[in-house]
């Protein structure tokens, strides 16, 4: 029943790859953060980067975003080599990174504002995504008037409103409380289905990764490498309420913990 494939790349044809990481290395001074790392992200799916702290998962995400240069190797997004940030990718930050002096609607529209979209047009788009993330009625509020979970919904709406094909999420739910987090995870599954975008999701929570992912890349540290790729197969269509008691879900969580256990200090 449990179908775990050590190498998923063989099962996905090349045209369906939205983002591909080829032989990427990253060196900070004399610290090797990433070493010769290769990984493919299938289009329209959510891939988690999971690993113990210090395994370089956020570094990899920022290299894909173009916020950090790779020391060697290259990233391709839809076949185009990444040289810096671009409109084909948008980023959701761990600490939300909202403009504290701007209202919710201006924050959500900020990506479009930077692209020179006219005010009425960008606010119409922003309103749509504010509704989509469940913040209708909060357009005129300021970030300090919102809870942590609501702030991250603003960050999510901002990333969605620029209509990038690839969404990069850097531990987006780690700064919100457990209950909000569960709601977020359910909403994220819905979002992946509705938006038909490629999601790359960094997390340190095993349960979260297994719950939301189509594909999980386990990264191991020192030096960072992909040790295993897991594609859960059977529980994705069973509804959000049934995932956590699905035998395959439980098996995968156990199996990942078994392989990560020895890396946790």
């Amino acid at each position, binding site marked *: 029943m449990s179908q775990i494939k050590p190498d998923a790349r063989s099962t996905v044809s090349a045209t369906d790859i939205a983002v591909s990481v080829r032989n990427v290395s990253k060196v900070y001074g004399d610290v090797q953060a990433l070493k010769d790392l290769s990984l493919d992200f299938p289009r329209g799916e959510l891939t988690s980067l999971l690993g113990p702290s210090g395994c370089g998962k956020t570094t990899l995400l920022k290299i894909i975003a173009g*916020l950090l240069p790779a020391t060697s190797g290259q990233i391709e997004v839809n076949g185009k080599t990444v040289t810096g940030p671009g409109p084909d*990718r948008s*980023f959701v*930050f761990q600490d939300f990174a909202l403009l*504290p002096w701007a209202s919710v609607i201006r924050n959500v529209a900020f*990506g479009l*504002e*930077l692209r020179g979209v006219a005010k009425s047009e960008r606010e119409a788009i922003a309103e749509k995504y504010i509704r989509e993330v469940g913040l209708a009625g909060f357009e005129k509020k300021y970030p*300090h008037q919102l809870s942590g979970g609501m702030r991250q919904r603003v960050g999510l709406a901002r990333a969605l409103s*620029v209509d990038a094909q690839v969404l990069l999420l850097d531990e987006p739910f780690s700064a919100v409380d457990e209950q909000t987090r569960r709601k977020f995870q359910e909403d994220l599954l819905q979002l992946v289905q509705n938006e038909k975008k490629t999601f790359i999701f960094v997390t340190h929570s095993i349960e979260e990764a297994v719950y939301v992912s189509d594909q999980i890349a386990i990264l191991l540290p020192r030096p960072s490498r992909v040790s295993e790729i897991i594609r859960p197969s059977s529980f994705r269509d069973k509804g959000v309420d049934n995932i956590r008691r699905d035998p395959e879900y439980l098996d995968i969580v156990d199996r990942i913990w078994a392989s990560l256990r020895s890396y946790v200090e």
Partner: protein
Amino acid sequence: MTVWGYRLPALSSLILWALLWEVVGRLEFTFFIPPFSEVLVTLVALLPTKAFLGALWTTAYAFWAGVFFAIVIGIPVGILMGKSRILDELLLPWVNIFLSAPLTALVPVLMVLFGFGTKTVIITTALFAIWIIILNARAGVRQINRSLVEMARSFGASPLDAFFKVYFWAALPEILGGVRIGVIRAVKGVIIGQLLISIVGFGALFELYSSKFLMAEFWAVLIVLFGLAFVLSEFLAYLERKVSYYAASR
């Protein structure tokens, strides 16, 4: 503040000092301190005179011009120093030297360079104000949340957009603090300029009244000056409070 259960209005300590002033003045210890009431009467008589209004206009013009240049040069320079390591290394020693330098001693040099007119007074005023404005803008930019900078980059902000839409606003609480202190220093600068360079405006009034021992007039002008500086600084403090809601949550 509450005394014996009564809540005192703001500035009530000033009433106490005014009373003390009155008493000392009436005791006639020294010609230097006339009674406070006499100063107030002189003040009211002085305000509508042509000499006073002319001086107020001259001083206000030099002051605002100096403050204007200090702000429009100081804030961008401070922000650029906060963003650029090279610029910071180059300029920071000079900013720190001029911040603590006795600028009054430099005034004769400025007179040689720029002449004896209003221009030199304006430059002196700007020099008094600009250094703290630069330092505060720099400090403001340096504490900007890293992910806010990354956010601007990841959504493709041009350097100009990042400057005007993110860095400036993120540093605004510190910038306003710098402007407030800079403006107070500029008051000092404009009077020193008007005393030493071209004897005009309030500087000329101070010179005139103190040389003729017209102490009531002297204090009256000083009170006006203090009042104007106080109102200005309170206004800037009010602006600072308006942005403080996000100063804590950046």
